[in-house]
């Protein structure tokens, strides 16, 4: 039933991709560009180059028409990217740019086969300019590689996603780079990119500067491939100080958070979570909810008295230095730690105005009770006033109804988020259905750009500007599933 309801509904330009020529000739052509060593059509590689952390059981994968890439190609230069895109255009083959493949919404996994274009080998730091306070890099540079090189010059980019151990810079740009560690203090990627060099799906090479850069942020590889980036850097900071407070209610937690975000001094990192999530990393001994905040460790950068008075006002209790430090040390992994204990950690990411987070949490808490879902949540301040909020459920995918109904709840939460002025954080393949409701102006802008940049529709089809199913269908499906689940409670299911 499930598969019937979500049958394909795409009418976009991507449907021009219909036939693929003889595989043998394509692979020879690809090898002609990058050499024998860096092309593969082996079963093993095709499986491996087609996944990302999207928490999807296998049946879910069938949404995508061809969920395995036909070829994996590792590129090392701009010329090689150009060569591969040319073949793709001439033979209508989809191209899926791939960085660290850590984006969680099937962003870099194929939906129509094609070429998985691995950009990790393009990992050179081309220039560190201390005088101009900028760095020029290739898109496959890792955050660690960049930090190590900049550190030698006593510089830092200052911002990174908590997936910094696996993501690469090009991937973060294509995902928007709005919220990460350091972004509340230094600003998001948008404030750091000085220029971007891109090869469009049409083969044209462009250098983008100023406002023109904006179109490539959140572009998820659907317009072209970013091959060089110039980024602003900062003087390095080495010492941080963290403070963690326990709260009894989500309202108190959120009120304190909103006031802290309004202080003049901005934190490097601010996280909120419930005790369920904490259980798996740094268990809470005080309160039911935690707020952890980290500042640059200089007296002028820590609003200690303000923190005391704000948290005190909302009955927040300082936990301990040790706990607080551990929160900072766990900044990379905390949100994924619960996965250790469940086959499926289902989640949805939201980008919310901080003032509205409380409304989201109180609703999710009420679903937790009414639908008895094993819920947990986590939030990370992204900008001065917006948060990347992650609502999760630990569900065994084998429990089909429970699984679908929990997804249904997350869908309802998304509708609520949109009403409240928020929307999905990562778009990728899965959240493209929300584009028209959450970001209508952006959708129009991206659709126009898509026609211009990628007239053949080869670049990462089925996301952002179009999708494999429609909002309405998904809406009906989840409505039914949650109703069934409620019903099953009464009939002992």
């Amino acid at each position, binding site marked *: 039933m499930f598969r019937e309801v979500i049958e394909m509904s795409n009418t976009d330009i991507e449907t021009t991709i219909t036939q693929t020529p003889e595989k043998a000739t394509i692979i020879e052509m690809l090898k002609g560009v990058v050499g024998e060593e*860096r092309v*593969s059509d*082996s*079963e*093993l*590689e095709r*499986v*491996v*180059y087609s*996944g*990302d*952390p*999207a*928490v999807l059981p*296998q049946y879910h994968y069938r949404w995508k028409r061809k969920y395995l890439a036909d070829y*994996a190609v*590792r590129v090392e230069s701009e010329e090689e990217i150009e060569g591969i895109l040319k073949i793709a255009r001439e033979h209508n083959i989809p191209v899926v740019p791939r960085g*660290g*493949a*850590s984006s969680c919404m099937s962003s870099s996994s194929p939906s129509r086969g094609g070429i998985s274009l*691995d950009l*990790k*080998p393009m990992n050179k730091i081309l220039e560190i300019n201390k005088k101009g306070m900028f760095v020029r890099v290739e898109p496959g540079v*890792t955050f*660690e590689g960049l930090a*190590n090189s900049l550190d030698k010059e006593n510089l830092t980019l200052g911002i990174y996603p908590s*997936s910094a*151990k*696996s*993501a690469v810079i090009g991937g973060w740009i294509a995902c928007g780079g709005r919220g990460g560690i350091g972004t509340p203090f230094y600003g998001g990627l948008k404030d750091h990119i000085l220029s971007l060099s891109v090869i469009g799906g049409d083969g044209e090479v462009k250098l983008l500067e100023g406002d023109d850069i904006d179109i490539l942020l959140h572009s998820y590889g659907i317009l072209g491939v970013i091959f060089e980036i110039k980024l602003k850097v900062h003087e390095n900071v080495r010492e941080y100080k963290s403070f963690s407070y326990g709260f009894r209610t989500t309202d108190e937690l959120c009120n304190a958070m909103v006031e802290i975000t309004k202080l003049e001094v901005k934190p490097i990192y601010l996280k909120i979570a419930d005790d369920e999530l904490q259980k798996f990393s740094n268990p809470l001994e005080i309160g039911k909810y935690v707020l952890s905040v980290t500042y640059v460790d200089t007296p002028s950068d820590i609003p200690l008295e303000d923190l005391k008075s704000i948290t005190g006002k909302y009955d927040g209790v300082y936990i301990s230095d040790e706990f607080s430090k551990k929160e900072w040390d766990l900044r*990379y*992994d905390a949100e*994924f*730690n619960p*996965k*250790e204990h*469940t*086959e499926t*950690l289902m989640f949805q990411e939201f980008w919310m105005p901080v003032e509205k987070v409380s409304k989201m949490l109180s609703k999710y808490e009420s679903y937790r009770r009414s639908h008895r879902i094993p819920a947990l949540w986590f939030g990370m301040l992204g900008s001065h006033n917006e948060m990347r909020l992650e609502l999760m459920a630990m569900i065994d995918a084998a429990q089909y109804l429970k699984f679908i109904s929990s997804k249904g709840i997350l869908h309802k939460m998304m509708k609520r988020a949109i009403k409240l002025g928020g929307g999905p954080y990562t778009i990728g393949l899965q959240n493209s259905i929300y584009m028209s409701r959450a970001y209508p102006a952006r959708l129009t802008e991206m659709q126009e750009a898509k026609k211009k940049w990628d007239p053949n529709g080869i670049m990462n089809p089925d996301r952002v500007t179009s999708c494999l199913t429609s909002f309405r269908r998904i809406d009906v499906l989840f409505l039914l599933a949650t109703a069934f689940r409620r019903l099953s409670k009464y009939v002992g299911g």
Partner: protein
Amino acid sequence: MTKLDFIERYGQENEPYICASCGNCTLVCPVYSELKWESYGPRGKLHVVKSIIEGEGEFGKDFAHKIFLCNLCEHCTSVCTTGISLDRFWEVARAEVRERGLLPAPAQFVLKSVKERGDIMWMGSADRLLWMEGIDELVKDRILKKAKVAYFLGCNVSLKSQLHDVAQSMVKIMDYAGIDFTLLGEKEVCCGAPLSWAGNLKDINEMAEKNLSLIRELGVETVVFSCPSCIQTWSEYSKSVKEDKSIELLTASQFINRLIREKRLHFEEQPMITTTFHDPCISARVLKATEEPREIMDEIPGVYHVEMNPSRQNTRCCGAHGLLDVVDPVLSSRIAERRLRDVTVTPATRIVTECPRCILAFDLAKFTTGYEMLVQDITQLVEGALSPKEQGGGKDH
């Protein structure tokens, strides 16, 4: 659904599903870093195992070989977001490869050699005495003598002439410090570690026990090792070590550091030696013994120690662990060369470590790269710096 017998028998069938696919493990994997295809990295391999379990892929020769292209270096385990013991998973996957009759030839050889000869190199018990040449006086009454401390050399140090100086240095240090110690001599057999690397998990305990029963008979309380993998293997696979905590297993540097704190070792000024310490994967990530070697170097006057990047728990593998040196010597050597490049950006002229495989790997990589540096075990550095006996210690000049 394909049944993966061993993986299930050892309770590992859920691990591919626990994996969040976050990719943390890919970028740190030395094999991925060299071969650059994700299917050689840990996340990739887990994806493939998952697709095999789902009945969508095959556990063929190609994949079996890939399972062996791994250093069992534990780097993936140390960064895994979801806390999977990947090292355990890779060992069990090797057992699955063996069960299916797909073992690479060098791994088959190792299993046969350990079983029939008691070592990894098809030598024999008599060869375990060769390292003693030239220090007969120091060792002649030590073999199988009752004592509180035993020195367990391991196959590489006992049998590879290149490493005999490591064993001799350790014996000299113990003698200098006035330690009453014992050696198993020709009765020492392989610790059992290579069995786990070659997919035979069930015989490790028996192999370990051959050594441990002797050690217990001699009344030993502390065993000192030149190879960290021996400690790991006994700690993880020996039933008696797990049950009876009365025997202490120490790395060379843990033991030497203790001797220094007990003021049993004294050093003379060295002529400005700049060293860097390479943390062996198992010492750093499993035994967490990262500080002792540094503390030792700090104690030797004239030795200046600089850090390599990465180091301690984030150390890079030397490329020789986990049988990779025999399964794919070229790849193993490339990994070692990469690690030596980390040394070349420091002012160090000497790379010190405490694992025989690292020493062998770096010596080879030095040759292939032409890098000029001295590779030493920490025992060799310490022994070379001991002050003459009459000045307060026991060194016979």
